[in-house]
């Protein structure tokens, strides 16, 4: 075996480099050097993102276990960029007295999940895929329980790890069936054998469950609300966009590569889950008063919308999906950035009543939040409209009219509950609104980036066109 092959995995090796550097810095740095720790991490990640984007040549390594191409590199860079935004927002929280001493752990854990996601997306072999998924899940459980002295956070961590283990077990069960049926674990060898008999369907669904858990599709979503609510807000943000984005991309790859002869079966599967996810999550979201819980249901329904792109299963669907993930990252992180700022100010969980009258004290944050929610609801000319339009268009082209119609009706319902938040911020009077928040520089930077993304991503068609060029 040629060990030099390892060096060809540029994104992974580069991220590993960043990982090691941060780890060492955490060990040796003391005193005033620690103060620039956060800045250094951000700079390293920026450099890494750059390497990721430029390392785009197509290559197959380890006898076909690992595969990388410009599109996958782009998505990796995209997720890293999202992680960077999350880390930017975490600054103030990390400086808190409970978290200050384990700042390094936070970065290291987060980056190891990211490496896991890289492997998930590049895997062309079920073993590597499974390792990737586990590598992405286990450190996340630590992150969810990061505020371990806070009861909620510990409970959320336990819930997350138990659910995650459960879903992994089922997925492994599915994979073992696949192995039993086909006698191989390589993606490329499987499609000819998997033709859609009941046992094939059984293994498809069992495998699907593992990713369905990470994407939090109904009925695999039950952990979401509890874990989102309990986890530290930055971790929730990470869970809701990055982890989900990687899983969606992986799902797309597996369905189109491995189950390419079972298209009607998995399309039906996705059809059911999409309708269930969007509708049920929307109906639940209306009733939520805790904002993080609310965002959990919102993210479940957004996951349903992304499935519209996956269901198309072609190049157009892939473009629509990646663009959706990109837009979803900026919009959702804008919302979580604002929530995090409020939490740091008030030191309490944010409820809908908390932000009553938020506009009167923090007009800019309120405006950003409004734009982000408009974008999530899919109102033109914000980016969210375009991402929704593209996924609808791709599902429509694939012939799923009724599905598109159901999804569209749900956008109106979602508008209703997103407007509830807007109403709370702008209209509902409050004698003690949240005080004027002074964001730190890092958070401010991330919010500005999110704002620019929400406003510009849709209008600047160049982004979409370039993603389209990469799609296979």
């Amino acid at each position: 075996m040629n060990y030099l092959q390892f060096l060809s995995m540029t994104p992974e090796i580069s991220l590993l480099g960043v990982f090691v550097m941060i780890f060492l810095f955490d060990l040796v740095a003391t005193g005033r050097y620690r103060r620039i720790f956060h800045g250094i991490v951000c700079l390293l990640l920026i450099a890494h993102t750059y390497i990721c984007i430029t390392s785009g040549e197509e290559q197959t390594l380890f006898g076909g276990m690992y595969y990388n191409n410009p599109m996958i590199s782009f998505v990796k860079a995209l997720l890293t960029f999202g992680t960077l935004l999350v880390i930017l927002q975490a600054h103030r929280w990390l400086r808190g007295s409970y978290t200050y001493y384990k700042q390094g752990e936070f970065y290291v854990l987060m980056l190891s999940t990211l490496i896991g996601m890289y492997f998930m997306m590049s895997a062309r072999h079920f073993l590597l895929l499974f390792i990737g998924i586990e590598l992405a899940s286990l450190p996340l459980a630590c992150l969810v329980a990061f505020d371990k002295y806070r009861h909620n956070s510990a409970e959320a961590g336990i819930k997350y790890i138990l659910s995650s283990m459960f879903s992994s077990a089922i997925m492994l069960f599915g994979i073992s069936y696949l192995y039993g049926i086909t006698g191989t674990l390589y993606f490329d060898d499987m499609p000819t054998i998997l033709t859609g008999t009941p046992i094939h369907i059984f293994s498809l669904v069992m495998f699907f469950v593992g990713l369905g858990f990470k994407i939090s599709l109904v009925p695999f979503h039950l952990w979401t609300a509890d874990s989102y609510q309990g986890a530290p807000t930055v971790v929730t943000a990470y869970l809701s966009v990055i982890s989900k984005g990687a899983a969606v991309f992986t799902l797309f790859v597996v369905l189109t590569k491995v189950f390419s002869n079972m298209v009607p079966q998995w399309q039906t599967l996705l059809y059911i889950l999409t309708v269930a996810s969007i509708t049920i999550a929307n109906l639940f979201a209306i009733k939520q008063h805790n904002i993080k819980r609310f965002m959990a249901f919102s993210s479940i329904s957004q996951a349903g919308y992304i499935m519209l792109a996956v269901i198309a299963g072609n190049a157009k669907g892939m473009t629509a999906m990646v663009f959706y993930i990109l837009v979803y990252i900026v919009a959702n992180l804008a919302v979580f950035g604002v929530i995090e700022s409020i939490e740091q100010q008030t030191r309490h969980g944010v409820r809908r009543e908390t932000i009553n009258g938020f506009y009167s004290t923090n007009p800019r944050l309120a405006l950003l939040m409004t734009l982000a929610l408009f974008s999530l609801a899919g109102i033109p000319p914000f980016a969210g409209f375009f991402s929704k339009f593209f996924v609808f268009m791709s599902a429509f082209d694939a012939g799923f009219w009724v599905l598109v119609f159901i999804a569209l009706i749900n956008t109106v319902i979602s508008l209703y509950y997103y407007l509830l938040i807007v109403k709370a911020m702008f209209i509902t009077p409050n004698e003690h609104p949240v005080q004027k928040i002074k964001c730190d520089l890092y958070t401010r930077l991330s919010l500005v980036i999110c704002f620019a993304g929400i406003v510009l991503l849709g209008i600047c068609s160049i982004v979409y066109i370039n993603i389209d060029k990469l799609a296979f």
Partner: protein
Amino acid sequence: MQFCIFILILPLLSFLILGLCGSKMPHKLAGTIGTVSLSVVTILAYTVAVIYFGGGRGDEGTFPTLIPYDYTWLPFAGTLSIDMGILLDPISVMMLIVISTVSLMVHIYSLGYMKGERGFQRYYAFLSLFTFSMLGLVVATNIFQMYLFWELVGVSSYLLIGFYYTSPKAIAASKKAFIVTRFADLFFLIGILIYGYYTKTFSFSVNETMLMAASSMLPLSLGLMFVGGAGKSAMFPLHIWLPDAMEGPTPVSALIHAATMVVAGVYLVARLFPLFIGYAPDVLHIIAYVGAFTALYAAVVACVQTDIKRVLAFSTISQIAFMMVALGVCTSSNPHDGGLGYMASMFHLFTHAMFKGLLFLGAGAIIHAVHSNEKSNMGGLRKYMPITHITFLIACLAIAGIPPFSGFFSKDEILAACYNFSTTMGVFMSIIAAITAFYMFRLYNLIFWGKSHYEEELAAYNAREREEKPHKPHEAPFVMTLPLIILAVISSIAGFIPFGEFISSNGESYSIHLQPAVAIASITLAVASIAIATIMYRKGDSKITIYINTHLKGFIKAAYNRFYIDELWLFITKKIIFNGISRPIAWFDRNVIDGSLDKIASMTQKLSNHVRPMQSGNIQSYNIWFLSGALLLILILIYLA
């Protein structure tokens, strides 16, 4: 024609300037920036019109369709692409004039009306945004661009209706308007998707072969697009948002809910008219019937409203329905043979924008003077507000269809088109026209004649029955009366514009000729209605009024409550969706899913571990759902799919 891009750029710039640095500006400067930029836009719009119509007709006897800007914004799979551009043809140029004129009047008027309001700069920023999006809508080169601006219009109207964001009513209204129109737009979007999918383009001009290939799907697609138009244009039963939207500032009502946004649906149908006529004439006739019903419904409801802005709102719904009917009764694209309605509709759109804008601005002046929307606080105002009185009267005469005011000519063409379609439709619409004259003069008499509310209160004050001295109504300041006068002049003379020379269904010149039978009948009906309204309402409540009120109590009450349509909608959304679906699911989640499994878990806990009562045990239930969900999916896939 390259300069026409500035018609879009200027309002956008003014929005950005006012939006970004408006809060630090003095009110006067903000108002001036908005008004001046709009004046320039108006001048440009008129220049475009003069050059365009002055340029003469092409060889085929029609005005050419110019596309000075066309930019492929997003190439999308194969031949399908999303373009952005500017399209000039007779109707878009006419709309440029309508929008810029009314918007300029509203800008000037608001200088007085909104004086001293908190958020004055924000108001002007939103006005600019609205004007920008409306102008972008009418010059769209393709259906997708139109949809984008269409939604942007919705957003800016949401912001403007909710301008008084401290008033809960205004907020509820803005939300209602936003969600109802969004609901309608979802059909619009599906229509666009179908259209794009089958014709392989979003453009309005599609080549014949593509259209033939798509002809089986076009009626569906056009019908869905019309639903979107019906939402914006407040056609029954999607009209429910418009009366509530009157909570916004009155000049906004004049701009959005009288002259511009609400006619977007009419404009959409007119824009797609060649497709409708060629491939979906049945859909067009459905539009006519929907319009006719809406016209009647809104006219009846308008007769009993007491809030003057609501009367005008229902009157708007009714008049827009007239335009829809006119489009719907077209049977061919030849104006001499069944295509008259197209011209009539556009003509009425033009005249209606002017006189309805005038009515709203006049109502604003009145509300400004008496600080109330209710007719009971008015009466006898003609002495105190002479200019408002005269201009309001002109607008009433115009809408009632009395020559030589503009409404007469356009409404007459609509009625003629209806009679060409079928006598029943003609008679039906004539009756509604008569009702229109009735409720407008009811309104006019109640406001300007009858017992003066102020004098009664003054008498009460003098007789020491009242503590405070009543507020004396006064004429509005010059910046407010000037737009009234300008619009009144336009409303008086616009009827003499040879409209058919500019716009007709197939683009060829068509000279308007009155049909004496229709004209005489409608004038007679209008005069009779005005006479009845005057007898009934001039001196306050006459015997006839009391008689009618007592004998038709139930009907009047139902009409006053708008035949309970809002309640029906509320019932559907609140009762069925929230209570019927959402709440039971939430309950199910809490009590059945959580509850039952919680109980199992908690029983286990009680037996085994009393120390950790915090452990909810939910995880087990989650995993049960998880697994049973997966198994259920497998069963469905194997046995059902």
